[in-house]
């Protein structure tokens, strides 16, 4: 048996080592942030905290949870993620289904397909997008965050290919039994595509949750920022060179622990969602695997 050879065993061990190392690299920063968030501010500001809190306290968490701006941003982000994921998934399921048909069934299929692919390859860029969003009067609404990114062409193509790989015979059987396209889609294709749907939803959830730049561009009032934009504005180092000799102002600067707490609470939802969807990953985005 090939997997009993020394070479194969060596390969397996090496593989585990590399993956372990990669895993540690991913987890260490999170532990570091966690340690800072539970530390007192003086050692945190002077980079004295490693992987274990110094002068343990939970003040930064009580402060964060009592901050109305933080909780508002959190709620806005939740709403955006739910709405955005729902919209993206609806659009790409419908479009993916239609485009998975042959040109003989869906006459202008190729034109539509090229239309989508074209937008994937060539984007207008920041300023034209900004002008479009502004002239559609979407500024300062949640739609400005959700609509421009609703059609994820790449994800749609993945889904389209998954639909294509589903045996034609199943669809034919359903059609013969008198089903329409919607019944076929919802009763035949979607149940089979659950792993893909779950995976693509996770992509969408993570993408919506983490997006910050559009919030900065399209939201005109900082009180309506989604969480990622809010965090971005507080985490990135401020320009202290413009500081004025205002004692009260200077006292308020050292907030590294609070920032850490906010980052940690910010990544929590994704950390929680991930394990539940992770099991779909392996099956979810395999392209061209044999299913007959």
């Amino acid at each position: 048996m090939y997997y009993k050879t020394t070479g194969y065993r060596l390969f397996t061990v090496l593989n585990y080592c590399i993956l372990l190392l990669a895993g540690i690299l991913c987890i260490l920063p999170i532990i570091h942030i966690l340690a800072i968030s539970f530390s007192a501010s003086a050692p945190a500001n002077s980079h004295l905290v490693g992987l274990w809190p110094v002068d343990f306290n939970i003040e930064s968490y009580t402060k964060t949870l009592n901050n109305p701006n933080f909780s508002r941003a959190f709620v806005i982000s939740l709403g955006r993620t739910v709405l955005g994921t729902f919209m993206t998934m609806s659009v790409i399921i419908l479009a993916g289904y239609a485009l998975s048909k042959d040109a003989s069934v869906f006459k202008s299929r190729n034109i539509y397909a090229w239309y989508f692919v074209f937008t994937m390859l060539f984007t207008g860029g920041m300023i034209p997008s900004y002008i479009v969003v502004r002239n559609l009067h979407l500024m300062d609404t949640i739609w400005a965050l959700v609509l421009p990114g609703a059609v994820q062409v790449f994800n749609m193509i993945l889904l389209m290919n998954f639909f294509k790989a589903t045996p034609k015979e199943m669809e034919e059987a359903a059609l013969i039994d008198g089903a329409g396209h919607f019944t076929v889609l919802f009763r035949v294709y979607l149940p089979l595509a659950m792993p893909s749907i779950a995976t693509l939803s996770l992509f969408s959830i993570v993408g919506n949750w983490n997006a910050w730049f559009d919030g900065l561009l399209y939201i005109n009032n900082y009180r309506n920022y989604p969480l990622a934009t809010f965090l971005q504005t507080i985490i990135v180092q401020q320009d202290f060179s413009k500081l004025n000799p205002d004692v009260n102002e200077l006292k308020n600067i050292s907030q590294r622990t609070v920032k850490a707490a906010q980052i940690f609470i910010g990544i929590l939802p994704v950390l929680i969602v991930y394990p539940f969807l992770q099991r779909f990953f392996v099956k979810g985005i395999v392209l061209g695997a044999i299913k007959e």
Partner: protein
Amino acid sequence: MQLKRVSSVLLVSALAFSVTACSGNGNNAQNEPAATKAAAESTNAGGNASATNAAGNVDETGWDGSKYVEPITLTTVKGIGTNYFFKNGETMENNVMQSYMKDNLGIDVKYDWIVTDTNDAYKTKLRLMLSSGEKMPDVITYRGDMETVNMLIDSGQFMDIGDLFDKYAGDNYKKGVELNADTWLPVTRDGQRMALPVLDYAYNDDMLLWLRQDWMDKLGLQPPKTLADFEAIMDAFVNKDPDGNGKKDTLGIATGFKNTFLGWMGDISWLFGDYGTLPGQWNKSADGTLTYGSIDPGAKQALATLKTWMDKGYISKDSGLKDENGAAELFTKGQAGALVGRNWMPDWPFGDLLNNVPGAKYKGYPLPAGPDGKIGAQSGNPSVNGWMLINKDAKNPEALLRYYNFFFDNWANPEKGSEFENGFAEGYDWAKLPDGTITKDPQKYPDLFPDYADRTHLVEPIYYTLTFEGARQPSLYADTMSKLANGEAPVTPYEIQSAAIRKPENIEAMKIVLEQKDIRMKNYFQGPLTETMKQKNELLNKLINQTYSKIIYGQSPIDEFDTMVDNWKKSGGDQITKEVNDWYNSASSK
């Protein structure tokens, strides 16, 4: 088969991530053509100023001497700093400052947009407005790089404010502007003044030497007069175990030059000053022309000294990887014995030092003199800390000056018994205790400061103003501090407040700065970036920083400096020098 599957999963997910990553940072603002000059959403400049009261003392703008009879509207945009705290229920658009100005001056400020101003968010949004051809509000205030100010001026949407200033600016504002002969220089175009300066306290950014006094005392060291003295002190800090832990883990001076050799904290440019030049700025040479400090022969000597410091362990081996904050951390965690920085550092970040190292003491000293007796240091802010532009189409352009005047006259240095003696509003930034004394401590007296969302901060409405912090008289801070340092009793509300909240080390530091004010070396170039600078600056700065680092780390011989100077000159430096001098001659001839 199993393997194939895993690898294809990996491949696809890698692809997916790269796609999302690409679409994530569409940060190509500069390259985008301003395609359509979109009809801007009605920003509705100016309200109902037309209905002027016909009363005798009301002028043609509707001003009766203390307020607009019919309230006028000023539109603007706002970047909120980290020092902006609001009471529960109050916002940028609706707060005590807003209603005060509307009721008492008849000026209603409206915001087209508001952004939290970190990571250049305000700048990004402004530039987006510029490149998308959006209509500008009545007033734009900007604090930051000159390049953006120049872009705003060049957009042609803003007016020459020269006549307005002469006609409407109050005496206090005019006096502050006159303190510095070059105030208008950066914003003058063809003799027209294109922006109003926001004045700030002078000398506030000047450098002095901070030493760990407990180490000095322990090792029996005397204050340094010369660079040689200072090197002896650093030697003791490094080799005589000042923190008493038995390990050789201490540094002489905390510094970091990852981004620049002219930093605002943990600064090292003063060492260049000891050899007669300052890097990264345009100094005046003996013949009156401007020369770039980074290529001055004095810089070569400074680099040689810095290299010996690196070799002897006086500075951190990581100095080339640390920015200003990184440098200050070396000091606040108790590793380094010296730091060159500004007068206000006792308030931040030295508080961290006292927390981290029990028993630590620090003290400010004058900068030591170089081998030839020279001392030189940054001249800090030229008492201007921002610019205000007024839209050509503004209905009441003079309103901004009246707004600013109000704060100069009533806020900057209030009289005893006047309206703003204790702060802007009771229950916001001050409160009165039953025994009549004034408190500014919301943590201790929650009842006197109602509706606070977060009691660790004082809510200071003055920051909500259009003009950043009301108004500041440039000379007031330094004068007050030196008065206090000389032991005089505080008299005016401003002096009493300063005496109450300033740490003694801070007051002393300001005195040192003022005593050493002759060492200031000004950056004489304050114009917009020249043509060659726009193209070459990045490259040239990289050349300089790389060569500097290599010399300090001993990877290149010190004579590499001369090669670098040649390269610098050939690759555009000579052209830049010419352009800078042309600018200086034309600007200073007026």
